């Protein structure tokens, strides 16, 4: 079982994600260069956070054209596991592997803080180590995390259990205040229809060690280990 972490120019959570996967989760992890055409046998490809290409255009809009994205797309279409974190989520939206788009946060400011999210579906390959309704504490750090999709898409993802995480208060309640960036339906993470691609705005790699204030993020990585093993 092997992870691969894609490095785009401007990725800045690449080392953090590699550290969490190698040192905390303890799995071999390949660094995948965006200009290559090789996933190096990864069982799960992670698109990390950061500011790919500076995010001077729409976040993630240029990274989708990186050469390696051709392989990532084919890998996903064949059912391979792909996780996009923060900027990685934005890239997945730009690639069309996930529906919807990101708007600026409702407060029109970059927002870095711990948030709590509720596990909406514990049956996914990204959450099977958790339980439905569980409240996870993880940091966010983004300017464009205000999820938007048209009503038909929202209805579809709601009906099919594709919403994985929603912003909630520490007791698991959905409130306007807890929905820190103003996302529609308080969406913090969602999967594709097939359930093998997930994007999430919170950073699980920043919540994988007690010294950083939370280990709740490990649930995402441990779920992936279980999914691959089964």
């Amino acid at each position, binding site marked *: 079982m092997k992870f691969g972490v894609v490095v785009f120019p*401007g990725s800045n959570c690449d080392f953090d994600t590699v550290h969490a996967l190698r040192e905390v989760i303890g799995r071999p992890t390949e660094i995948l260069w965006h200009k290559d055409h090789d996933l190096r046998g990864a069982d799960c490809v992670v698109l990390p956070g950061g*500011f790919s290409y*500076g995010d001077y255009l729409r976040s993630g809009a240029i990274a989708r054209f990186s050469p390696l994205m051709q392989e990532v797309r084919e890998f996903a279409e064949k059912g391979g596991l792909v996780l996009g974190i923060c900027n990685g989520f934005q890239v997945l939206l730009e690639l069309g592997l996930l529906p919807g788009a990101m708007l600026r946060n409702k407060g029109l400011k*970059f*927002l870095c803080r*711990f948030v709590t999210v509720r596990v909406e579906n514990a049956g996914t390959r990204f959450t099977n180590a958790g339980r439905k309704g569980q409240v996870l504490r993880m940091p966010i750090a983004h300017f464009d995390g205000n999820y938007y999709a048209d009503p038909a898409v929202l209805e579809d993802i709601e009906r099919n259990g594709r919403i994985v995480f929603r912003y909630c208060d520490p007791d698991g309640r959905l409130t306007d205040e807890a929905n820190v960036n103003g996302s529609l339906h308080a969406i913090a993470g969602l999967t594709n229809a097939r359930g093998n691609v997930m994007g999430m705005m919170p950073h699980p790699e920043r919540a994988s060690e007690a010294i950083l204030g939370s280990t709740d993020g490990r649930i995402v990585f441990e779920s992936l280990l279980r999914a691959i093993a089964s």
Partner: protein
Amino acid sequence: MIDPNILSRHNLTPEEYDLIVRLVGREPNLTELGIFSAMWSEHCSYKSSKIHLKKLPTGGKNVVQGPGENAGIIDIGDGRVVVFKIESHNHPSFIEPFQGAATGVGGILRDIFTMGARPIALMDSLRFGPLENPRNRSIMDGVVAGISAYGNAIGVPTVGGEVYFGEVYSLNPLVNVFCLGLADKDKIFYARTEDAGNAVLYVGAKTGRDGIHGASMASQEFGEDTETKRPNVQVGDPFKEKLLLEACLEVMDRHLIVGIQDMGAAGLTCSTTEMPAKSGRGVEIDLGLVPQREAGMTPDEIMLSESQERMLIACKPERVEEVQAAFAKWDLDAVAIGRVTGDGRLRCRFHGEIVVDVPVSAVVDLCPMYKRPYEAPEAAPRPTETGRYPLPADWNGTLKRLLASSTIAEKEWIYRQYDHMVQTNTAHLPGAGAAVLRIKGSSKGLVMTLDGNGLYAHLDPRTGGMIAVAEACRNLACVGARPVGVTNCLNFGNPEKPEVMGQFKEVVEGISEACRTFEIPVTGGNVSFYNDTEGVSIYPTPVLGIVGLLDDMAKAVTPGFKAEGEAIILLGETRDELGGTEYLKVIHGREEGAPPGLDLERERAVQETCLEAVGLGLVRSAHDPSEGGLAVCAAECAFHGPGGIGFAIDLQGGHRPDVLLFAESQSRILVTSKQEDIAKVLDLAKERGVPAAVIGRTGGASLKFSLEGRTLIDLPAAEAKTIWMNAIPEYFKISGETENGR
């Protein structure tokens, strides 16, 4: 030819010009004059300050590099070093807050990674005018957004800092940026060319017309024409710098280069003179080969541009292709623009013609140093006669007003705009006195803090300088860390005014004395003079950046109360000192009196007591009273604790209630301990002659202060916290939005 008008535009005196003529051996042309103008500016040459800066202690067994390079270096053991520095970007940030602050971050980052270190933390010390004034809000909004945009994108966490507000900063805000990097001891690089024959490579962004004469601009007062200087401010590109950072660290890691220097102030001029000067060599470059962003640039524009995200590299000629390949991987150009020569001269060609030919040592080392006349500040003011100030009638209301004052209020509105967690080393979140980072693969931790109180230094420069050091070290002691090195940013007015020079001398001597007491080396820093607008100087504002080491991360202590029913112990004593306090400023509208006194030996004893108690695991929380005194300190401990644990503190008389609550007496630390550890903590204090007493206990849902049993303050903790949290966001509220609490 060169006339007085031209000299004045270049900010050079006739005497300096005569010296230039002697050193060059002829009249310089305009490009050459521009080179001297930039390198002999106050900003680059430290010509007014060096004579005083020599008084600072710079040595120590762990010092790998003291002042004189891009940043200082301290050995932290295990084959690792920390590389750190603080620098000002005050003038550009006033003219153009967003880009001024952003490029301040970009510049200090380059200073760190040019030495081979990966930057792992940023902090900022900011000074603004009162937020009641919309212009000050707009400056602060721009500065915070600029820091956020640059630091977040490049992926270096902004882990803390400090912010003060005062009218004197309305026309002259201060933006001081600190950066710390971590490197392997055997992979440190310096600004050197080494041998003749080596290749000189230009890497990074193209050169444009931005920031020309920026160094000179930062060496003059501002008048009414400030707006016209906007084009002197550079524009930052954090994405380009991220690529540059990765590419530079890669060529250094592979030992492909021999020396490297960033192009900050004075741009290509600075790097093409300092690098050969340090190796006793010269450099010959072809300006036509310098990558340019716009057509038709003249030689002096190319030499003096301060376009960001550029570096100059020296490497062996046989390594050029490998270096170029490494930069190409990151889509960056690395262009060979010249070579190192043996004759000690900077020679620039442009379209085949020699346009510059000057000795590098003259430019770098022979700028005249000034012993500017100084006037000793007026005798230190007498201790304030507390009796002059009427006692407040409403103590609850007084504490509320202090908690809502911008300097004391919670700064989350600022730091949540900064990515403070990227790189996954941030062990304590911002908002406390010091930032704490773990070191991956080690049980050690790094602790760092910025500190400086301009009002204290204004009232008594020497004491203000000493307190800045003492308080920064105290912030580290509260966590349990010992200081290992200091960098300082000295923000002052016009040094040609004798009273400003007098303040400078006193502050530096105060810093020096305190650093000697704490046995910590000053490894570099920055002086920012000419912080004057329309003839008014800022308060002398020394900002100390102090880095400390924690041997065991697991023992680090935070300021928040941990549980109900624990003892609150005050180490040190409160004295009748209201001068220069936030209480006097906010409640009585006075900025006057003598700042709190400082006895360095007592300070040391208090810190040693705290450090030992933390080391023995006797301390549950620790925080030092600063602005707002004991009352605000205890309130902050409650706010930082889980679920808003309150407290009840009973004060003993001897002073007026406002002194006991709000005096900013130094050498005090408020700690909490479990009941069974009280005696041990008091014993440790007694051994060192430190007064210490249990003054209350944690618990309940209120902040309670009484004086010998009689209630002074009884305020619901939740209400007080809301006031403290919301004060700054209220100024920036978007209509219709509610701010989120924590």
